[in-house]
């Protein structure tokens, strides 16, 4: 009997079942929220190595002689200077400055770019790209999501694990670069030194038919390092501690990368991209809100959309993400507040079930791995 008959399945679905994942409906996908437990999985990635199914992510290619010209208009970051095989984190913006999505752009070659976009925004993004590409006859957008399986291998032993099953020299693969054609355990893949955890690691794209074999080969290679499968729960807690934004929480259609403290990924000196004028206006007028880190002083966990209060008890902002931090062993949150209340040390409160619970502004990100 197939108890997830109504859900989309990734190429790794049988692995979720085999490895005891607690499978849930995640935006229409059958994915595990956890395997051994969120805390255990979180610590496994910080200390050893973990394997994630991230096949729900969307992938697209942009190709043709006008590919770069087209993408330069679509993303807020200047990608003209991207080196071959380099990955750049950037945003699609609406003309009003809010985010359509955040994404990764990889330059495979001149006239050949590879995009990784959010699962929940995939259809919207593809429609957005296709609507605009019409003006660029020399550029073509292709949604290759259904033809792509993707896993993330993350943690201090990610490289040691993967090196056992590939002849590529992984030590030579720099952070935010890819090897577009590689073999892992004899399987054709693309290896990208990227991730969403704050740890070193890789994202590996494969043909869906090879999913199970790739998963099992990695699990076997990582056994000596204590590898475990990791679910969506720990994916969220890991990215949150590392200060990485999640669309729908830190970013949305009204929020620009400037408020989210992602200005370093925005190239205001690029003369033309969708949303540029709106960002200039926001800069000129001053931002209405900025993202801060909060540490709870009182007892309680601030959750998504809980109001943030000033000293007088007035609602001045809202929580975007909040949880118990397994690494810091503290209750922390991210929130939007007015710039004048954003200085580190500012005392605020979060309204939790009708009560004001004291919190203070702390530095972002909460967690940064020690550089080797």
């Amino acid at each position, binding site marked *: 009997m197939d*108890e997830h008959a109504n859900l989309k399945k990734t190429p790794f679905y049988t692995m979720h079942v085999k490895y005891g994942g*607690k499978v*849930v409906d995640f935006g229409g996908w059958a994915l595990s*929220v*956890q395997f051994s*437990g*969120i*805390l*255990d999985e*979180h610590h496994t990635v910080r200390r050893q190595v973990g394997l994630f199914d991230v096949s729900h992510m969307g992938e697209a290619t942009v190709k043709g002689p006008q590919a770069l010209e087209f993408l330069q208009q679509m993303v807020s970051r200047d990608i003209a200077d991207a080196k071959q095989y380099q990955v750049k984190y950037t945003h699609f913006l609406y003309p009003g400055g809010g985010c359509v999505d955040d994404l990764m752009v990889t330059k495979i070659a001149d006239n050949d770019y590879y995009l990784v976009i959010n699962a929940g925004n995939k259809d919207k993004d593809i429609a957005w790209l296709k609507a605009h590409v019409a003006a660029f006859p020399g550029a073509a957008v292709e949604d290759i999501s259904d033809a792509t399986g993707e896993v993330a291998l993350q943690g201090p032993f990610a490289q040691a694990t993967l090196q056992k099953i590939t002849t590529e020299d992984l030590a030579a693969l720099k952070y935010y670069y890819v090897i577009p054609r590689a073999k892992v355990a004899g399987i054709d893949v693309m290896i990208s030194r990227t991730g969403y955890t704050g740890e070193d690691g890789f994202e590996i794209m494969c043909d869906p038919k090879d999913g199970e074999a790739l998963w099992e080969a990695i699990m076997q290679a990582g056994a000596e390092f204590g590898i475990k499968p990791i679910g969506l*729960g720990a994916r*969220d*807690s890991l990215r949150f501690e590392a200060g990485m934004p999640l669309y729908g929480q830190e970013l949305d259609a009204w929020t620009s990368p400037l408020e989210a403290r992602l200005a370093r990924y925005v190239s205001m000196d690029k003369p033309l991209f969708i949303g540029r004028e709106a960002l200039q206006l926001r800069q000129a007028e001053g931002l209405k809100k900025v993202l801060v880190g909060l540490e709870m002083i009182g*007892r*309680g*966990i601030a*959750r998504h959309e809980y109001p943030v209060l000033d000293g007088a008890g007035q609602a001045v902002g809202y929580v975007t993400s909040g*949880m*118990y931090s*397994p690494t810091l062993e503290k*209750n922390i949150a991210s929130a939007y507040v007015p710039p004048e209340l954003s200085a580190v040390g500012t005392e605020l409160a979060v309204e939790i*079930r009708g009560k004001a619970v004291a919190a203070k502004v702390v530095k972002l990100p909460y967690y940064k791995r020690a550089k080797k």
Partner: protein
Amino acid sequence: MAFPAGYKYTKSHEYIKVEGNTGYVGLTAYAQDQLGDIVFVELPEVGQEVTQGEPFGVVESVKAVSDCYSPVSGKVLAVNDKLNDEPGTINTDPHGEGWIVKVELADAAELANLMDVAAYEKHAEEEAKAGHH
């Protein structure tokens, strides 16, 4: 999954272990398994009145916030302060050290509204099959 005999159970997955006119209230093994790692517990005050079927406290896992519903009406005689520092006790020993409150029963007749272990086992099994989380 095994649940202790002699306890009474709610549809919302709380138990009460009755001793005379008092009882220990907590979450069942099924509830803690569904919630996952519990990282925070909001306990009521000692002396607070609770009502059958109404919330008396909150437990939070990494992902979710859940109300705890009182199996009986009565008064809170004691709270398990240990859960403030070690909320995970609800995961490791839900029916024992992981109790949440001790209550004085206002009306023992209310116990007739609760399930015995056989009925609860069936209820939990059905929910698990239906894929409730």
